[in-house]
């Protein structure tokens, strides 16, 4: 598809993709307000270019994989446990670049640590021992062999977001040269910044730029005339840049930086309308909750840094995790810590509470940040460091682990909350929580590809739904209340209705829409259904997954019926939105239809007589690189086999649940087309159900616990007690000592020489008038007196202590 040089150029210059929006941020901030479209044009232009580059990179990557596959005689294949052929270490091309292996382009960011020449190396010839796993068995191995390429290294030439500069790139193909990534620039321990191109990151590049572009276009209409239109676009650019920067991380340090930068963009955009306290409260809550999770991130990454022999390099950490250099116990602790970060960023129970509140931000932001991209950062991080989690949690051969449990709890817990919302965005927010739980659940069961695939498909249909909700709200005079201001909208806004239907169908897993394929893979991955294989037998997670499949269909049916069916309950006539809003909706709905076909099971492909090559494309493109050494190692994960019967059962379950809800609302609307619930329904009649309903409405009382008890307790009693201690106890001691000294001084004064002591007391200076006199004295030229007093006072007091001690 591309010439080798073009591919190589693209892979080495992916840094342009985050750099362009970063540049756009600066330009919008400084010049945006003076431009005809108030800065939106810069943002859109930069994202268009970034998206084009991302598409090119995607095709180049796919081409790379395809040609590796077609050159089967050059590549090494390994017989997988299920009879599939999986390509592993891929043959180097003449450019010296391994096909399918991650392409890492790095520059030194900074370095901390001793000169490696002085460090005694464990093994002399370590640089040749890239494939020798025993060479890394020593934990303290500093691995400081030097790299020839970075002579004349100069990081002052860094551009854009602070990285890049193609004349001093250092490229290390990890699969070829296992050990070189470890801190070997020149002679120091260096921390690098750069780009890592592999299936997983290329997939995210595509998703982020694609959705960002549509959100930019959508926003030009949606936030038209906003009081901070320019700032809004500036932060959209900054967010896009930070997210892409994080996605391309080669080191955990870079990942942390990107991770926090997307967090601050989220903060700024949730609090976009900061005049109202509710919005800034939501922004603070998001930031602070994420900070709680970040404790785990900072600690987990620190653990991995030392466990891997002082390196932040992600491929290196993964490699050492796979080959067993890092003990399993260490991996477990690190994985638990990192899990806290995943819980906050990806809205997992019990740190999910910020995500629904984040809906205080503008709706396109909710679509981009709080549904499609940023919130999957946690899931992405699991994938990036999958060996750490996989081995740390002992995912293979298990039936439950922390990750699968948290994912399962989140997916059911979040789904249940979606039932009691009357705000359409809140429904979608809880649905996002639930679906993120699905992804974590998948990864927790070893279904790496299924989790990543669900991340991929979810981004499109959830963005479609959020933007659809925005379109609805646009029509209903900026209300998001389904019960008060909506109903019957399908007649008024057919485009929004149909795209919303497709998005919901995809979310609910109705074949052949996107969500069906990815959800099905996750359920298969549990390894519970007969003849599916998998990594273990995850009964409980499987049950969680099935319940969620039913619940998702049900709450989406409820949402659709409340919003689009029955009769309009709001005021004034609603209207369909303009083209800049509906076009992104249509595109996203189209994606929600087609992207699922990217990863069809081979049985399905055969059944329809399609070429075999169309099966599990996503798996082939995304999987081999990110975890290439991992898939094929002894510790690696295996693929579950698809099951037609499970697909049918799960689909029937979803249809039944959804159908029941539809029946409920049809009956309701038949009685009263403007009603939203039965006035004397079961909820109000049965105390147990009523209590359960209340429990859900109060969001499991978690907000009371966090905001009321923990935050309030810290801010209130605890902080006040500290202050009291400071003012009364500590300062009491200080003042007491002061008074005691004065008393002692008076006592000595009365006994010993008056004049000598007199000088000291005055010299110490105890009043402002005294100070003023000194100054006046100084100004009138009595410098000598001043100097004498200054040094005299110091010397006398010091002398007292010298003799006293």
């Amino acid at each position, binding site marked *: 598809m591309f010439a080798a040089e073009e591919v190589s150029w693209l892979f080495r210059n992916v840094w342009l993709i985050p750099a362009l929006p970063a540049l756009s941020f600066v330009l919008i901030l400084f010049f945006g307000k003076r431009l005809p479209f108030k800065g939106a044009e810069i943002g859109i232009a930069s994202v268009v270019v970034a998206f084009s580059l991302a598409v090119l990179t995607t095709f180049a990557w796919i081409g790379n994989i395809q040609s590796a596959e077609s050159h089967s005689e050059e590549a090494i294949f390994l017989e997988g446990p299920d009879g599939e052929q999986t390509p592993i270490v891929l043959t180097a091309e003449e450019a010296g670049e391994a096909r399918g292996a991650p392409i890492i382009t790095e520059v*030194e*960011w*900074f*370095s*901390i*640590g*001793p000169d490696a020449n002085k460090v005694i190396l464990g093994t002399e010839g370590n640089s040749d021992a890239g494939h020798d796993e025993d060479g890394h068995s020593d934990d303290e191995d500093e691995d400081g062999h030097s790299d020839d390429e970075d002579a004349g290294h100069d*990081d002052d030439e*860094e551009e854009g977001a602070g990285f890049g500069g193609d004349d001093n790139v250092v490229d290390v193909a990890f699969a070829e040269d296992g050990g070189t990534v470890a801190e070997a620039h020149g002679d120091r321990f260096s921390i690098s910044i750069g780009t890592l191109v592999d299936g997983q990151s290329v997939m995210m590049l595509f998703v982020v730029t694609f959705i960002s572009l549509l959100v930019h276009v959508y926003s030009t209409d949606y936030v038209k005339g906003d009081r901070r239109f320019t700032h809004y676009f500036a932060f959209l650019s900054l967010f896009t840049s930070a997210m892409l920067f994080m996605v391309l991380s080669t080191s955990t340090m870079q990942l*942390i930086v990107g*991770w*926090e*930068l997307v967090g*601050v963009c989220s903060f700024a955009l949730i*609090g976009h309308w*900061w*005049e109202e*306290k509710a919005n*800034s*409260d939501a922004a*603070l809550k998001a930031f*602070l909750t994420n*900070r709680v999770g*970040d*404790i785990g991130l*900072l*600690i987990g*990454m*620190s653990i991995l*840094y*030392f466990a891997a022999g002082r390196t932040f390099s992600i491929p290196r950490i993964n490699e050492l995790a796979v080959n067993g250099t890092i003990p399993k116990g260490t991996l477990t602790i690190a994985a638990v810590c990192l899990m806290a970060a995943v819980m906050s960023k990806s809205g997992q129970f019990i740190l999910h509470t910020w995500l629904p509140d984040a809906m205080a931000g503008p709706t396109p932001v909710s679509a981009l940040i709080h549904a499609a991209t940023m919130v999957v950062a946690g899931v992405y991080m699991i994938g990036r460091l999958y060996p750490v989690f996989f081995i740390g949690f002992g995912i293979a051969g298990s039936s439950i682990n922390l990750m699968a449990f948290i994912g399962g709890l989140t997916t059911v817990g979040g789904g249940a909350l979606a039932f009691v919302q009357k705000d359409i965005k809140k429904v979608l927010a809880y649905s996002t929580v639930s679906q993120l739980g699905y992804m974590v659940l998948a990864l927790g069961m070893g279904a790496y590809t299924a989790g990543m695939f669900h991340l991929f498909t979810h981004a499109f249909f959830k963005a479609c739904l959020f933007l659809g909700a925005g379109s609805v709200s646009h029509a209903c005079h900026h209300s998001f209340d389904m019960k008060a201001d909506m109903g019957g909208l399908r007649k008024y806004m057919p485009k929004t209705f149909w795209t919303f239907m497709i998005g919901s169908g995809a979310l609910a897993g109705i074949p052949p829409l996107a969500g069906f394929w990815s959800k099905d893979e996750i359920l298969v991955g549990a390894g519970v259904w007969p003849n599916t294989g998998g990594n273990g037998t995850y009964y409980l997670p499987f049950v969680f997954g099935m319940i969620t499949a039913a619940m998702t269909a049900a709450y989406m049916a409820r949402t659709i019926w409340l919003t689009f069916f029955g009769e309009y309950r709001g005021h004034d006539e609603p209207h369909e939105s303009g083209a800049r809003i509906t076009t992104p909706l249509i595109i996203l709905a189209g994606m929600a239809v087609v992207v699922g076909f990217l990863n069809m099971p081979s049985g399905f492909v055969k059944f329809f007589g399609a070429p075999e090559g169309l099966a599990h494309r996503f798996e082939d493109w995304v999987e081999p690189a990110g975890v290439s050494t991992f898939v094929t190692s002894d510790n690696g994960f295996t693929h579950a086999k698809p099951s037609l019967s499970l697909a049918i059962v799960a689909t029937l379950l979803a249809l039944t649940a959804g159908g029941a809800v539809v029946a409920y609302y049809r009956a309701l609307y038949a009685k009263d087309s403007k009603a939203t619930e039965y006035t004397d329904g079961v909820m109000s009649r049965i105390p147990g159900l009523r209590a359960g309903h209340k429990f859900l409405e109060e969001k499991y009382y978690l907000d009371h616990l966090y905001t009321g008890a923990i935050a309030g307790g*810290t*801010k209130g009693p*605890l*902080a*006040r007690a*500290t*202050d009291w201690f*400071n003012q009364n106890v*500590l300062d009491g001691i*200080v003042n007491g000592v*002061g008074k005691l000294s004065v008393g002692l001084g008076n006592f000595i004064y009365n006994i010993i020489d008056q004049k000598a002591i007199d000088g000291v007391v005055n010299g*110490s*200076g*105890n009043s*402002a008038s005294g*100070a*003023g006199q000194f*100054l006046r004295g*100084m*100004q009138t030229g009595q*410098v000598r007196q001043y100097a004498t007093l*200054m040094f005299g006072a*110091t010397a006398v*007091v*010091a002398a*007292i*202590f*010298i003799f006293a*001690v």
Partner: protein
Amino acid sequence: MQSFLENWGITAMVFAPLVGALIMMLIPEREEGTHKLIALVSTVVAGGLGALLMLDFDYAKAGEMQFGRDMRWIEIINARYAVGLDGMSLPLVALTLFVVPLVIIYSWDHIPSPGNAKAFLMLILVLHTGMIGTFVARDLVLFFVFFEVVLLPMYFMIGVWGGEKRLYASIKFFLFTLFGSAFMLVAFLALYNLTGGESFNIERLAELVQSEGLSTRTQVLLFGGMFLGFGIKVPMFPFHTWLPDAHTQAPTQGSVILAAVLLKLGTYGFIRIAIPILPEGAVEWAPWIGLLAVIGIIYGALGCLAQTDMKRLIAFSSVAHMGYVMLGIATLTDFGINAAIFGMVAHGLITGLLFFLAGSIKERYHTLEIKRLGGLLVQAPKMGWVLGITTMASLGLPGLAGFWGEFPAILASYNPAPGLNQTVFRVYMVVAAIGTVLAAAYLLWLLQRTAFGTPSEEFIDDPEITDMQWNEWVAWVPMLIMVIVLGFLPGLLFDISNDKVSALGEIFQALGN
């Protein structure tokens, strides 16, 4: 020219401000403009000399003393005038040279009540000399003199130009610090005598301590004396109570200099003097320093949450932030001490900016009571932005300078120097990490209550509330740029400090094995 720079560059840089102050003394008080100009010129001259030195500095040998000058001074006690610049002092000298001129520019329209620009600016210049002198001194007596020279100008600044409780605050500041200095001096003198009364030179003393084989017990005692001197200056919990009072009462310029540079004299003392000279004492003290550091982190943060006054809140935040610096130092590792140096510079820039902002807000609203503020972004959007970026930097957001002092210190505590108890330091690591949440909490609450929302009734139509003025632009923007540049290119600073710090770190690697 070149040889002048090599031989006299540092000396000229140190004393240029003092010369300025002497010239000002000859000019009558009423010529305020001239005074401001002289003050600015002399700090710019010092800055220019510093810039020339830094251009001439051999960064490949940042671990070694450069532009050294060693001359006879007080022969009877073998105290010599020895100065020099290396990778450890250079960042702090640069910080001082960078911040003080900005303070003087800010003072153009902001001479605090009761006026008298001449005296006020002269004090700043004397401070300037004292601060740079402390950072370049290589002789303990010289160090001590500069360290103490700083005390009096600051005392007068608080006592004369301060707020309502300036009397109490200034005396507390003075006596508290002097109290610590006395112990420090005792330790210096004892060290001198115990090593044979040969030299006060810092590097020489470090060698002598090793060759004389000073017992660990002696080292612990000597370290204790220095700890009081430096620890109070930092200030470390529980010796910090002078700080909130001094900061709150000091005029804006005083607070900025205090936060930006003065506190660093203490932390610098640890890494320049106490730890290299007394490594075995340092190993014994490190867990306790670490303990006080993490208590300071949490305690300072909780103290912040309880404050109702913006300036007092920022003052308390220094206790927490310096806790990270001290934690980094306590790990006795290259990562930790590099982080500490970065943290010092970052804290200087960030907290300095915060105090500038507090001063300007006070000037406009005539109050710093957080409850009464709000809507700064509406009334003075540019200032609100500066406040927003600065609080983000202060809470340690990556991409801004504060992060690089914080995370590496946390990371280093996971694996402290050999000989230190790993479990204890890992507990410190967790506590310090929790501190980052509290830091975000108090800073964001501050931001929310001052910058977000809408202005209250009493200020809504106040004509005095304007956006940034010219001298605020000139003073703040360079600091802001540095905060961002260092945030993205931490190597600019790490690469300077690393050589010297790694050499120090290796002492402890060797000591533990």
